[in-house]
Structure formats: C-alpha cells, structure tokens
C-alpha cells in the first residue's frame, strides 16, 4: 500500500513551474513524515513545558512580586536558599519522604502483583479493589483520611480503642504526621504500581517457572532467581517514576494541602509545598522559581545517576 507521501504521481501532475527543486529520497520522505507527526507533540512540549521551564529558570534571578514588579537580583535568591532554615527543613522532610516512599511503593506494588497474579476465583475483584483508590480524586482521598485519622473520634483511633491501645494524633503530632501522609500515599498508589508489576510478571515465560519447579526450586528461590531478575526493566521504570514523583511531590502536594497545610509545625512541609507557599501565599515568585530550579537540578542528578547505574535502562539477560 502506498502512503500519500509515497505518491510520485501527485507530484508529477503539478505544473512544471511549481515543481520543487529538491527531490527527496524515499527514506528522507519517511523521516520527514515522522517529524511532521512528532511536530504537534514537540511544539506542545516546547510551548507548555520547555518555555515555562526556561522562563521559571530566568525568574530565579529576579525579585518578582506577582503584581508586575520585576527587579534583577542576580544570585540573591540562591544565596537566600542557603540560609533559609525553612528551606533546609523542607529539604530534610522531602529526603525522609522519598527515602521511605520509594521502597514502600516498590515492595507493596510488587507484593500485591505477585499475590494477585494467579488464577483463582474472584481475583478480578481483588485486583480492582487494590486499584480502586487510583480512580478517586486525591482531594476526596485526603478528606476521607482526614476524618478517619482525627483525634479521639476518628475511625483509626476507634479501632485502637477496641484493642485497648492508646489513641494517637495522626495528623496533629509533628513526630507522626509525615508517616501518616506516607501511609495514605502508599495506600493510594500501590494499586497503580501493582498493575505495572503485573504487566512485567505476565511477560515472564511460564517455561522458566516450570523448569525451576522440575529442578526442585522453592517459591523463594523462584522469586529471587527468576522473577526479580526478569523484572529488572519494570523495576527500573517503577523506581524511576516513583522517585521522580516523590521528589516532585506529585501526589503529596494534594494530600498535604488538604490534610495538614504543611503542619503541624512544618513537619509535612515538603519542598514542593514550600515553593507553593513562597509563590502564592508570600508572593515571592522569584525565590520560589529559584527553589524550583534547584528541585529540577536534584531531579536531573537523580535521574542521570539512575540511568548511569543501569546503563540507560537497558537490560540484557543473556
């Protein structure tokens, strides 16, 4: 079948005066077609992502009050970051958050995938249940958990009381609240990563497991010698995506905005939330842009390191 670009007859029908001076080879025409198909997306990314990023980067060198006032301040915003205790605190909170969230999502996602990746009655129901939180708005999730975790009368504390355990202030104690947010984040996201791991598991040929069973391998040996190694590409994807979204606070922002507003006592003030506060509550757009650039730098370093360690995410099994 000939594509429209592969139709010399159309060109031949043109008047001689309008014929193009350059005749493209077939491979060049195909490349051109490919670029044309990519163009809308590339333009969209350039206009809505790349240009705003460059704009944000440049804002970091200005003092911007959000009412039209610009003043060039050089590196002042970056110097301020070095001495701002709230920024340092938010970096630490983000570090703890990422350190716990990424492994927790990996373990729960993989664990659930292994559990539900089998043929048994009602397995579809269980899979749906685990994935269900993902189809609910994060704001609804946050509001629901906020009520469930409230002091004394919240569902969780009521359950604790049933077992004679003391109640806790899950969202009001600075020593606990970040972990409560982490718990809700994992609860929300584990179904999503379960699906990704399931797709990885289903690509592993059954023959490997059959052969292992014949050789006398137990479940643990099968998991560690076959499943985990063959899931390396999926694991890389999960780690990369969860790491980037954890550092950028993609889900955490909504939860924190609704459940704690960065409190109590700044204990859940992730960098992304502090950037938001500086920009939209304090009208320090320049400083916020500076911090955002710093966050992008961290993300770049993390991503490049991951790619370097895994040789660009390419895995060879032979």
């Amino acid at each position, binding site marked *: 079948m000939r594509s429209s670009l592969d139709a010399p007859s159309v060109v031949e029908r043109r008047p001689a005066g309008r014929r193009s001076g350059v005749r493209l080879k077939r491979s060049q025409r195909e490349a051109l077609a490919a670029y044309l198909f990519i163009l809308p997306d590339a333009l969209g990314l350039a206009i809505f992502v790349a240009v705003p990023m460059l704009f944000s980067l440049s804002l970091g060198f200005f003092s911007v009050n959000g*009412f039209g006032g610009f003043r060039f301040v050089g590196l002042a915003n970056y110097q301020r970051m070095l001495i701002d205790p709230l920024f340092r605190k938010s970096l630490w909170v983000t570090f703890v958050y990422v350190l716990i969230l990424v492994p927790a999502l990996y373990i729960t996602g993989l664990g659930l995938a292994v559990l539900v990746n089998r043929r048994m009655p009602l397995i579809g129901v269980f899979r749906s249940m685990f994935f269900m939180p993902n189809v609910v708005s994060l704001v609804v999730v946050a509001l629901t958990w906020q009520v469930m975790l409230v002091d*004394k009368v919240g569902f969780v504390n009521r359950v604790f009381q049933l077992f004679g355990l003391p109640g806790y202030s899950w*969202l009001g104690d*600075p020593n606990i609240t970040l972990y409560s947010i982490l718990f809700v984040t994992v609860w929300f996201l584990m179904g999503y990563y379960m699906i990704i791991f399931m797709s990885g598991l289903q690509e592993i040929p059954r023959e490997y497991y059959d052969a292992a069973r014949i050789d006398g391998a137990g479940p643990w040996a099968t998991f560690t010698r076959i499943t985990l190694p063959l899931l390396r590409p999926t694991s890389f994807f999960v780690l990369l995506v969860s790491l980037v979204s954890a550092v950028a606070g993609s889900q955490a922002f909504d939860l924190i905005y609704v459940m704690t507003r960065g409190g109590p006592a*700044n204990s859940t003030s992730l960098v992304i939330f502090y950037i938001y506060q500086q920009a939209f509550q304090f009208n320090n757009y320049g400083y916020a842009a500076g911090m955002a650039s710093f966050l992008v730098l961290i993300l770049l370093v993390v991503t490049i390191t991951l790619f370097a360690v895994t040789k660009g995410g390419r895995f060879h099994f032979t």
Partner: protein
Amino acid sequence: MKPPTESEVTSPVVPSVSATESPVSNPSLSGLTRRELLIGGGKVAMVAAVSSLFSPFNINVKAATPKSLSFWQFYSPGGGVATQDKWFQDMVKSWNSSHDIKVELLYVPNQDYMNGSKLQTAFASGQGPDIFVISPGDFLRYYNGGVLVELSQYMEDAAKKDFFDNVMETRIVDGKIYGLPMEVEPMAMYYSHKAFSEAKLSEADVPKTWDHLIEVSKKLTKKSQFGCLFETGPGYYQNFTWYPFLWQGGGDIVTPEGNKSAFNSPATVQALKFWQDAIKEGVAPRNELGFGGGDPVANLASGYCAMQNLGIWGVSLLRENAKGFEYGVFPCPTPPNGQPKSVLGGWSFVANAKGKDPETAAKFCVWALGSMSDDSIGRVVDWCIKAKSDISPRKSALEKATELGGYKDGPMKVLKDDVFPTGRGEPRVPPEVYKAVSDAIQACQLGGADPKQQAAEASQNIDAFLAGYSGAPLR
C-alpha cells in the same frame, strides 16, 4: 447605528463555503502547496508561541470602555447559607439596573480564595478581578503590590466618619481608605449547654481566666469529647484567633511605629504557653473536624468539643445548620492581670487599581457599602443581621440593626455589648511576619517547643525582615 455585538467584533472573517461547493474547489485552498501550508502554519504557530510567552506579567490589554467589571468573592450560589449569596446577587442586580457598566459576580471556592492560588495567578498574569474582597491579614500584600484604589476620594466625609475607628485602622494608609468592610467579626468562646449540663456545670462556671478555662475543660473532657478547641491548622486564620491572647497580656507583634519587633515579650511567651498547656493537658485536640476551627457545626454541635474559640459568624452557621443546638457565648478568658481583648476580623470590598476601570470599580465599592444613602446603610444592616451574623462596621448601620432587634438577646447581644468594645482590628502584617508568628504558634502548640525560645526566634526573624522592608506601615 446598532453597535456591533461582541461576536461580530471578535470573530475572524471566514470565507463561507456553500453546501454545493466543494471545499477543494475553493480557490484560496486549491492553489496552496503542502510546503506553503506548512510554512504558513509554522508562522502562525510561532506568533502564537511568542505572544503566549510574553503575555504573562507584561501585557495587560485594557478595553477602552469595559462593558462589565468582575467581582470575585467566596459566597457560593446555594452555598452554606443561601441568604448570603442572595445578598450579593441582590446588590449586583441593584447596581446593574442603574449603571451602564455592569458588575458580574464570580464565585471562587473558599479554600481556593483564602489559601489557594486563584487570586495570585490572576494578578500575576495581569488578569486580576476588578473588585474583590480581602481580609486585613492580606491587606499589605495587595497594597504594597500597588493594586488597591483609594476609595476615600469617592466618599462623603459623613460616610468616612460613620465607620468605627478600630475597624478602619488596618484599612487606612496615610489617612486614605483602601478597603470598605462589610462586616466586623469579633472572636469569643462558644460553649455547649448540653456538654455543660452533662458535666454538672452551670453558667456560673463559665471560665473567666486561662487557668479556669483549663480547669473547666478538664471536667468537660471525655472519651470522645475535648473540653475546648483552639485552631490548630497553620495559616492566617490561626494567627488571627491567637492575637487576643497575645494582646490580653499587653503583647504585640511590632512596636507602635511598626518598624521593630515587639514579639519577644513575657506576654507572647505566656500566650504561646497557654495554647501549649491546653494540648499538654489533653483538653484540646491537635486537629479538628469539618473545615477547621472556624466550623462550629462539625466541632461544637457534633460534640467533638465542649467549648470552641470562634468568631461571630458561628451564630449564623449554627442557626442555619444546627437547628435546635443550644449554646452560649462568653468573652475570651484573660491571664492574671490581663485585660479583656478580642480581635475584629471581617472582609472588605476593594477595587483593583490595575483593573479594566478602577474608577468605576471604586465607585461600586463606595456605592455598595460606603455612602450615606439609605440603600447603602440598609445593605450593611441586612448583611450583618439577616444574611450573616456580624457586628456592623458603621455606626449608623449598627444603630439601625440594634433597633431592628439584631442584637437584642443571646449570643449576638454578648458579642455586641461585651466582646466588640474590647476589640482591636486584625493586624495587617506582610506574609513574612505572619509566617514567623505562625511558626512560633505551631512549634509551641503542637511541637512542644520552648515558648521563650520561639518568641525570641520569631522576633529575630521579624526584625531581620523589617530591616529591609519599605512598604506601608504595619498595624
């Protein structure tokens, strides 16, 4: 001549193609090669990209004569109290029926309006509303940003004098008025009659001092009920509710000149410690139900707490949403040797100096709330005793509202006669100062930090900020 409609002006001219004509036969398209189409399309895309790049922050296109002005506020159609939205609708309808330039209401959800980014992003892109409402806590952000129109230039002298001084002090710079309040909202303590009677307490046990409040709260605290509730969420609202306790001991955020911190004082330390003690003693919760400490229906009426630190708006919320719930109101208790104090909150109409028509926007604010006409005074009365439950910011409106029985008994009488006279306007401070105070409150109340150390740290931060501050004076 009939003026062109908006669609006639803005619609691009498109050559029409009749049903019988094939689009291919259109001469304007048939002669176009793919290359020309791509080049032309690319040019259009470039123009769009460049114009979109430079439009934020820079270009603020103003129509020569606007047909309408936008008015942003957070009273939703059919929201919590229907009469409040109706008051806004009626006001706009009345203006629109007698003016060429119309006003259009735009509802912004409360959470997004107060803590969100809607207003800020609108102003940052030069698309801020023509008229909007702000609280004193946010006044300096907008005043220092140069977006508030002076309203007093359109007001009669009698009208200027008709507003209470303690209400207006945080809306005035250099003797000029920049915001016209629609309400005054003093803070007090609410208590549940049911909780008191279950604990065998009577009206005589209503706390007068801080120690007494903790003592009574202990008696009211049960397995599923806290004795008292103070706001726990960080934000402007928490600072607002804490100020009376700071002022009762003679403390303040800044010196009267507004150029140095006054925060590191014994009064600050004792106020921070009081809220901390309420948590430590287990009589106050670390978080709240509903929309927070300003929500009496979810907290007080539900039985989550027996006493709640709350503003006057609680009266209308309970009236509408917790019918039959019996409660009382008393002034905030005081520390040893302290003075009764309350904070007077409330929202103001302001006009955007960078809007489509700042003069008309300002005239609307004055027409609505700040003229000596019966309509204007009556509108304030309606808002304060019918649509909502507030103290009037105007002397004439307060008199009229009192005559109409708006404050004749119950909580409204206590709030007007006992609490309002002890009130001081909500301070106007820049966001950096608010944050320093907020961090000190949060660290002590919920983090168990040393109040002395926190007061000193916050004071240092305030001084460091004020050293480079050049905006309007803090009050």
